[in-house]
């Protein structure tokens, strides 16, 4: 079943200490060519009927994201597991 995917990211001007901590750990893996890491959240919504982008946008704006500190994007994603088995 197609689902709506909501990606929530901190606004660029908001400090992301989690991302910084991960970036600071990368040299320990021998990785030295990463300039920055930002951490966000991916939310998958399955509607009982057809995926409803407007409804998902409303959910994201009211609950999933805090517009004071976060931006979000909303998109419909086809079921990838069906492709994987074909």
């Amino acid at each position: 079943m197609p689902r709506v995917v909501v990606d929530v990211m901190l606004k660029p001007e908001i400090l992301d200490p989690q991302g910084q901590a991960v970036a600071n750990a990368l040299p320990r893996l021998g990785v030295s060519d990463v300039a920055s890491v930002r951490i966000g959240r991916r939310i998958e919504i399955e509607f009982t009927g057809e995926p409803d982008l407007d409804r998902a946008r409303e959910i994201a704006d009211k609950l999933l994201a805090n517009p004071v500190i976060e931006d979000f994007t909303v998109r419909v994603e086809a079921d990838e597991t069906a492709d994987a088995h074909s």
Partner: protein
Amino acid sequence: MTARVGVVTFPGSLDDGDAARAVRIAGAEPVRLWHGDPELHGVDAVVLPGGFSYGDYLRCGAIARFAPVMETLVDAARGGLPVLGICNGFQILCEAHLLPGALTRNQHLHFRNRDQGLRVESVGTAWTNTFQSGQEILIPVKNGEGCYVADTATLDALEAEGRVVARYVGGNPNGSQRDIAAITNAAGNVVGIMPHPEHAVEALTGPSLDGLGFFTSVLKHLVGTPA
């Protein structure tokens, strides 16, 4: 008549007991309110206590904001009901848009738990009118997501309008912008504070009795408010 101060319990609230106790020590009658009950039961003021409502899932305070009690409380607060949000309560007030800005993860990523110095800067609010302007107090702070952030225009407006209620002194425990520990709304009836005044009301357990002033302030405010 004894003032009645409501203390809301959400699933995951921790400090509702201490908040109710602080209300009693200040000389008011604590009234326990329940997140699932939209009724405020005629209380004269409300405290949103600290803790981890709804497990801090999604964002701190994001789900509590939609509790039935909050719908009533938001309207009442806009109508002038004094509301104090402590720690998680502050986060809930920001999520409910009763206060501007947001509280994010501590910059250093560590949970901070210590006795914290604050300077009270705004003494015109319903919750700080028994303090002197510039008075320094010591109360516990304990948070993982207490870093106050807002855009520059909002921060400038808060400072210009005297709405920064308290700032951290002797070290900023969480990276809050402009050392902000507590703010108020334009009317001065809604206050959010990250440290915990309710843990500093008795010599046996607190680092001071400085926290009591927040609770005696609201009683003074209520006496001065015509019914």
